[in-house]
């Protein structure tokens, strides 16, 4: 699985992109966040600011219950500020 981070989330996590192998019992975004949160404290932010963070699965806006697998590209980012 590719996980991408943008804006201040990227700076907090310390990388813009990671390759992670997730166990097969992780099947949606919510489970993925819990899994990362237990794995390393650098991911606590994703867990703590859950309601503020936008999620994309395969470059499409998604939600906590969107299905994910190891072949997907996930992105976490703050609300957008272009224009």
């Amino acid at each position, binding site marked *: 699985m590719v996980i*991408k981070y*943008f804006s201040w989330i990227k700076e907090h996590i310390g990388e813009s992109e990671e390759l992670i192998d997730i166990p097969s019992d992780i099947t949606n975004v919510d489970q993925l966040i819990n899994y990362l949160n237990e794995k390393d404290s650098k991911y606590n932010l994703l867990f703590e600011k859950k309601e503020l963070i936008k999620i994309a699965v395969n470059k*499409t*806006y998604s939600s906590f219950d969107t299905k994910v697998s190891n072949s997907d590209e996930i*992105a976490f980012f703050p609300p*957008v*500020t*272009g*224009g």
Partner: protein
Amino acid sequence: MIKNSPVIKVKIQNEDFDVSEETRFLQQDNTGAIVNFVGIVRGYDEKNNRTIHSMKLEHYPGMTESEIEKIIFESYKRWQLTGITVIHRVGNLKPSDKIVFVGVSSKHRQNAFDGCNFIMDWLKTKAPFWKVEENNNKRNWVSFNESDNQALKKWKK
């Protein structure tokens, strides 16, 4: 002579754009009205009361383009536009630099005004771009403006 499908251009780039050239691109045989929006980097952040020396824009390659295309498709269906262009700059920008161009053309004027306004409002809330303002040695990620969510209400059918 009458073309039924609109001309469409979406560009994410660091380079500046030329408003005259983009206006010409939007003009089709059946175009009677063109509305252009140009966004400018402001040198003063009123919310936080501070001067901005420069800013940097990042985006999510692939997703940014695809979100903009969804907005364009919706605006085309709703207002029968004859041309639609969205150019958004990324990378380093300074105050007074142009940052975004949204131009639309249509047969009649109100569709052009509404189509352009609609695209800007949705771009502000959906297109994955993020701004970081730089002021001396401080970096400040710009936070989302709740008024941009409010602006979407006018497009409820």
